[in-house]
């Protein structure tokens, strides 16, 4: 009997040890979610209940107006630096938490002709061999009665780009040819493969604007043609819903056209989202350098190649914007503007009916506690 008890106890001990051995393993897929309506990892997570709203708050007809620093406010991210100042990058090169850190002294090439120590200011080059040590005091009287002007993020060059692209588009020859382009939004959408791209070129000969005939391409592109020395711009459409405007291929094409024609400045893209976009070359040398420095940035879909660091940055930004509430087309276009900041190109946008091109842009202001990049809109008004 005693022997049986010993055997029983020993068997129990063996089993216990075995279990303890396995208890040391932590399986990777083990679900650690705690549950509950406010646990983001839980299947029971409910945005409405968790935020003190009715359970089916998404179906509410009433428009709820949230304070500007409430995350549910649609303009929350536009006020982000005011609402969450600690999320925003200070841009200060002495701040070790900023991406601008550490400070690097930039060489001032603009004033290099005036010798070492010369630098550019609002009144031109001073210091070095200029013989000027400081800017003269502005003696223009300030009229205290004038209301302070609302700041416009647009520089004069950006405003000029808007005027140039708008004026060129409004030439009679351009608008007439444009009116003969196929309608982009038929009520019965044909299959994707039948949504063919169309386009034409815009020429300037002794200041007289004319266009080449409309030509037809495939669903995925419009072959280059009729590019003679006098071509200054071109236009094509992206008819299929879900396509993007303009594409990474259009940016590459812009550089190729400029290499061929020194007067080429603009590629217009008519999009299925009901807008017109214009890629406008601000700095041809910068565009050339961008293309040279980013080989393979266009993938086989004419899109930004995710396997390059530029493409990765593009898709991250695209997701950041979609997370912030933008539509896929809007996020795509805005993410493009971030890439263009280093490419010497502006992206301008106009409603297809009321032609008035304005530069669109974004600013990366910092990171939220989840590690996401916070982006705000910075369009010309």
């Amino acid at each position, binding site marked *: 009997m005693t022997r049986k008890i*010993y055997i029983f106890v*020993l068997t129990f*001990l*063996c089993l216990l*040890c*075995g279990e*303890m*051995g*396995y208890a*040391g*393993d932590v399986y*990777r*897929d083990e*679900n*650690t*979610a705690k549950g509950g309506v406010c646990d*983001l*990892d839980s*299947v029971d*997570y409910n*945005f409405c209940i968790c935020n003190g709203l009715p359970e089916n708050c998404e179906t509410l007809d009433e428009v709820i107006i949230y304070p500007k620093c409430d995350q549910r406010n649609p303009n929350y991210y536009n006020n982000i630096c005011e609402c969450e100042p600690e999320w925003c990058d200070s841009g200060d090169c002495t701040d070790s938490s900023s*991406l601008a850190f550490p400070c690097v002294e930039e060489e001032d090439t603009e004033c290099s002709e005036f010798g070492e120590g010369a630098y550019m200011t609002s009144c031109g080059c001073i210091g070095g061999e200029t013989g000027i040590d400081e800017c003269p005091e502005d003696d223009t009287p300030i009229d205290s009665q004038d209301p302070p002007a609302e700041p416009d993020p647009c520089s004069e060059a950006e405003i000029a780009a808007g005027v140039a692209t708008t004026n060129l588009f409004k030439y009679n020859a351009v608008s007439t040819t444009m009116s003969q382009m196929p309608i982009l939004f038929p009520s019965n959408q044909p299959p*994707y493969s039948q949504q063919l791209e169309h386009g034409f070129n815009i020429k300037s000969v002794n200041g007289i604007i004319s266009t080449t005939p409309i030509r037809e391409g495939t669903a*995925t592109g419009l072959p280059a043609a009729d590019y003679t020395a006098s071509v200054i711009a071109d236009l094509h459409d992206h008819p*299929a*819903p*879900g*396509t*993007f405007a303009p594409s990474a291929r259009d940016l590459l094409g812009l550089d190729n056209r400029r290499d061929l024609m020194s007067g080429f400045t603009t590629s217009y893209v008519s999009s299925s989202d009901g807008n017109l976009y214009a890629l406008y070359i601000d700095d041809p040398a910068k565009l050339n350098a961008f293309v040279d*420095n*980013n*080989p393979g940035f266009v993938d086989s*879909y*004419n*899109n*930004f190649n*995710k*396997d*390059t*660091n*530029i*493409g*990765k940055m593009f*898709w*991250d930004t*695209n*997701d*950041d914007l*979609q*997370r912030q*509430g933008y539509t*896929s*087309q809007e996020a*795509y276009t805005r993410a493009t503007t971030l890439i263009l900041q280093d490419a010497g190109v502006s992206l301008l946008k106009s409603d297809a009916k009321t032609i008035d091109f304005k530069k669109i842009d974004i600013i990366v202001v910092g*990171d*939220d506690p*989840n*590690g*996401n*990049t916070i982006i705000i809109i910075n369009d010309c008004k």
Partner: protein
Amino acid sequence: MKKIFFILLIVLISCKSKQEILDSKQETNVSKYNNPNYKSLQKFEGDTLKYLQTNFLLTNKDFYKGKPLSILLNDLEVEVKAYSGASGWDLNFKESLILSFYSRKQEKIKIKEKKNPLVLTIDWEVPLPQEKVVELLRKNQGRWTEEEKNYYGQQIIKDIGMVIPNY
């Protein structure tokens, strides 16, 4: 009584040995799905780039192609810190997933320092609907949670790539 203590001692020693075997097995960390060429991160002595290249790119990626992403994720010994999606022709679908092993901020610093940002890219056999992807993105605020792991884990891998920096 001495016999009992003797037997007890043998039992405890055998238990201890079993625990050590389990520990050493975990350290070797062989592929959970029998990828014969899988090598544990430990063997690369901190070279995560080489670990990723050896196990999930080059010829070894063929093992994971045509299988659900969960198989790769189960073998992966580096934590996913951020992710994003990429489209092809149509913005209504996501053709690929981009997996980052640094936070976005760390990644920016790596790029600034001209170091490899360590990013794997996964192409899907079947593109994923944009609505579902954005729904997850907004719900979990871009974090790689169990929900993302489960959803993307079910999708079939068409190809695996890596971000190649331009410097």
